[in-house]
């Protein structure tokens, strides 16, 4: 177990390391560079000044040498300064990270609370009206464009009914009461929850149907157990294994969903931060934000591996390592 964990973490670190170079290179390919931004801000800069500035900031160096320089600084804790937020990158990211984690955890919890029972219900009554209904709803959930869902929620709950604010956070509105703060969370959380229900319902249903045809389920039924004991007591634990794995694997998808939701609702989380940083030529911030998002998905993959092997005693870590 420990050697498995160590090896997998090592693999993840290598991927993260490779990605840091790739992302660094890609960000260098975005339009303009820091000196271009200075020139556009100050018309008095001559082209000789620009060359001198590029030399001072090391922008005339080849890519690998600039990257090594950045990496050295990053490892010693200096992630640079954010242009958009006018503060160190880390100080800009921390509150956004908290906001996003809050959004992700609450919407994932809600989505699972709806999707898992729905999937089990559909699986225990295959090819009935309720199965078709649940399946249809799940298909609708995975097919709806997430940003349009957000816009529709705004259209209905903000424009027509006027129940909830269309975006932003409580800080902008000067609200201090808990309820007023929560109001700003309702629509983003609802949007991300609805977007996630469909996929989880389909996984749960498929996995449950697969388990329900096993021999030990027939045995459990033959010895006279009630259907609910069979499903919840005997089948559920095994049916959950692939579902838990998929949930962990989908952390990256969830993060992409958060980026869209945060942008639509102007919610100050990591997704919107990364988007704004890329659009606003905030290179340092974009780089660190993207690396954090990559790290998050890699942790999800690691969790999926661990869950897969530790929930199913038939699978050993040694096998997974092949």
């Amino acid at each position: 177990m420990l050697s498995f964990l160590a090896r997998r973490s090592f693999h993840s670190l290598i991927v993260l390391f490779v990605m840091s170079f790739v992302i660094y290179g890609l960000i260098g390919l975005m339009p303009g560079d820091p000196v271009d931004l200075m020139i556009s801000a100050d018309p008095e800069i001559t082209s000789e000044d620009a060359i001198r500035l590029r030399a001072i900031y090391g922008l005339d160096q080849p890519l690998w040498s600039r990257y090594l320089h950045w990496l050295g600084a990053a490892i010693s804790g200096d992630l640079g300064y954010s242009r958009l937020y006018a503060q160190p990158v880390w100080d800009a990211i921390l509150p956004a990270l908290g906001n996003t984690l809050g959004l992700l955890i609450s919407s994932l919890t809600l989505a699972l609370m709806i999707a898992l029972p729905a999937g089990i219900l559909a699986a225990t009554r295959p090819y009935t009206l309720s199965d078709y209904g649940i399946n249809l709803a799940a298909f609708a959930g995975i097919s709806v464009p997430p940003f349009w869902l957000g816009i529709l929620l705004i259209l209905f709950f903000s424009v027509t009914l006027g129940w909830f604010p269309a975006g932003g956070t409580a800080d902008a509105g000067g609200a201090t009461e808990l309820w007023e703060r929560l109001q700003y969370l309702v629509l983003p959380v609802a949007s991300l929850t609805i977007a996630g229900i469909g996929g989880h319902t389909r996984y749960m249903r498929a996995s449950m149907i697969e388990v329900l045809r096993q021999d030990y389920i027939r045995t459990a039924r033959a010895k006279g157990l009630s259907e609910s004991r069979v499903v919840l007591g005997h089948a559920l634990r095994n049916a959950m294994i692939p579902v838990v794995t998929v949930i962990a694997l989908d952390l990256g998808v969830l993060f992409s969903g958060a980026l869209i939701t945060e942008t639509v609702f102007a919610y100050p989380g990591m997704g919107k931060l990364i988007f704004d940083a890329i659009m606003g030529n905030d290179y340092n911030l974009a780089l660190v934000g993207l690396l954090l998002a990559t790290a998050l998905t890699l942790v999800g993959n690691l969790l999926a591996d661990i869950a897969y092997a530790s929930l199913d005693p038939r699978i050993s870590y040694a096998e997974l390592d092949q």
Partner: protein
Amino acid sequence: MSIAHSPPVDTPTKIVFNRFLRHRLALVSAVLLGLLVLLSTAAPLIEAALDLDADAVNLFGRYSAPSMEHWLGTDELGRDVFIRLLYGGRVSLFVGLTATITAAIIGTTIGIMSGYIGGRVDALFMRVTDGVISLPVLPLLIVLAAIDLGKVGLPESMVDNENVSLYRIVAIVALVGWTTVARLVRATTLALKTRPFVLAAKAQGAGSLRIMLRHILPNLASPIIVATTLSVGNVILLESVLSFLGLGIQPPLPSWGNLLTGAQETIWEAPGLAFYPGLLIFVTVIAFNFIGDGLQDALDPRAQDRRGG
């Protein structure tokens, strides 16, 4: 005599076709999608027939309500919404199909080589596949969509081409979308390569390339078709998200995604502008998903058994 009375035997194609017809939702979806493709393709004809111009700006007729002249009203520049939706459909469907097919070709090539050659090639390809799967797709696509093509070394004539956003999005979506097909093809190839017909071909002296193309590839058709159909929907969603964020298809070229870009600001004055493009994306994506589901049942009957059919 008895031969004349035996019931006619269906060809495999006919069996598959009949099974597909039984999946009613898939059938309805196929008809609906056919209609959408037809309408979008015929956009210039419809435009001429209705005596409208998709690009005609009329600042005196902004946000007009649906009427006989403008079936779905007009947008913030007074352009006809219905015709622009049809033109947007051309772009969105084109991107969806070409990007998916490109991704399927990349995925099939990598998967079949990985599965058939095995060894180090397999290890390398699968590491790369695992790496791409484990990446946060959307943030990376945003970076890829934001890079300056001039800095990559593309000639200026290409960078300034007005359709460059179209090709760019096909390329970057294909770049991350091939992994599902690659894994599926690899797994199927692994199962196929020990089958007697492959061994027989090998015994006759057929080379690796010939075995892969002539003996294995045809047998991969069903899984590839199913996986590709199911991913068209995802690709259209990705295109619409990127275009919505202002990074995909660039106006004035309309796509269903970029038609929604400004919709959030005009949502109070013209809610319809925020509604129709999204509805078309939704209908198209769900239709592709139902068709994929139907094809899966039709091409792989065991899949339906496994799912409790």
